[in-house]
């Protein structure tokens, strides 16, 4: 499966997603500008992304815990998600998203 990620600088990257990986892990391991400091435990919100509106239904709604974590960043939009809470699957082949400013390593 493929994921298309626009980084904070506006550069577009097409990444090969691996079934069962967290989207955050793919973005991090491909070296993009994502802090992801808690490592995927839904405990920090530094893997914050904006999901392309066309993909919101397929990705599904955030959990209560994820919503709580999103309170810790100031750039939330209606399509905000934590990328550690999105699992790669064939149903998400082509998933398109943008890294939030608050996900940057040096934010």
């Amino acid at each position, binding site marked *: 499966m493929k994921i298309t990620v626009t980084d904070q600088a506006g550069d577009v990257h097409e990444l090969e997603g691996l079934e069962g990986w967290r989207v955050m892990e793919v973005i991090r391991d491909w070296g993009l500008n994502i*802090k992801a*400091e*808690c*490592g995927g*435990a839904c*405990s*920090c919100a*530094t893997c914050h992304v904006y999901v392309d509106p066309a993909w919101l239904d397929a990705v599904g709604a955030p959990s209560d815990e994820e*919503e*709580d974590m*999103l*309170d*810790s*960043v*100031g*750039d*939330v939009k209606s399509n905000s998600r934590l990328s550690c809470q999105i699992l790669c699957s064939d149903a998400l082949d082509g998933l398109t998203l943008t890294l939030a*400013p*608050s996900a940057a*390593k040096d*934010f």
Partner: protein
Amino acid sequence: MSTEITTDVVVIGAGPCGLFAAFELGLLDIKCHFIDILDRPGGQCAELYPEKPIYDIPGFPVVTGQQLTDNLMAQIAPFAPEFHFSRMVNSIEKQADGSFRLETDADEIFHTKVVVIAAGGGSFQPKRPPVADIEQFENKSVFYAVRKMEDFRDQDVVIVGGGDSALDWTLNLAPIVRTLTLVHRRDAFKAAPASVNKMKELVADGKINFQLGQIAKLDGEDGQINHVHLTTDAGDLSIPATRLLPFFGLTMKLGPVADWGLELNDNTIVVDTEKFETSVPGIYAIGDINYYPGKLKLILSGFHEAALMAQAAKAVISPGERVVFQYTTSSTKLQKKLGVA
């Protein structure tokens, strides 16, 4: 006057790897002092995921971050390490005799033979709101903590956030401010329900305001804000304000470590894999903050690094002393140190 402390080892960071270093050092009769920016031990385990399960600590099929911290604290208790919480090391200077002089932001000076950096992802700092040029207002009219309540008396205060810090300070400051507006992005709160109910009562009584929205921009000059601009579902909004308190939690920043003259690799400290020594002899780095080929950021790797580091530190602290390798299971000497023999 500065407080001066002389010791063998200063460990910077009281996360799991730093704590276990006190055990390995203790077995070698080396006493250590901890310095940590948080107000309690545990590092990321305590701050980010105290209740989250960890499945890859050898011997523990599952343990939470807090349980692991509590167990490590019990394990090192016989060695009585000293903890200096809620402070940060500002500088490390190597002295002519090879020892080090450390200064903290709490006006302390440590003289130590060895420094162990176990600072994880760096020091925990308040998360900034995504607002341009907010730095110019920080510690003048924008604060990330309330140190003196008097600074807020008769002020127009805006508090941002939905957690316990935001709600607690809303309730505490409400009686002394001129106006107070709590801003949160949604009408649901992570804070304790009792605090939320009290806040809603104050809003109903007209004593404070609650505004749904997110902070977008600050107006002001010479460090003094005068308006906070918000984006809300109903459009943009500007609130007169003389104090802003954003409560978005903490994030890790490398901080002063970057200025200590150590060889770095992408925000981590380069070490060797025999001693876990940095490019400055006598300064060691263990746990998530170090880098070497093959490095895995796992707690168990940090434990291993702590054990080898301790052997190397012993040679610096007690040069020429013969160290006999012993097991805690069989050595009466070690068991005496642990208080079990």
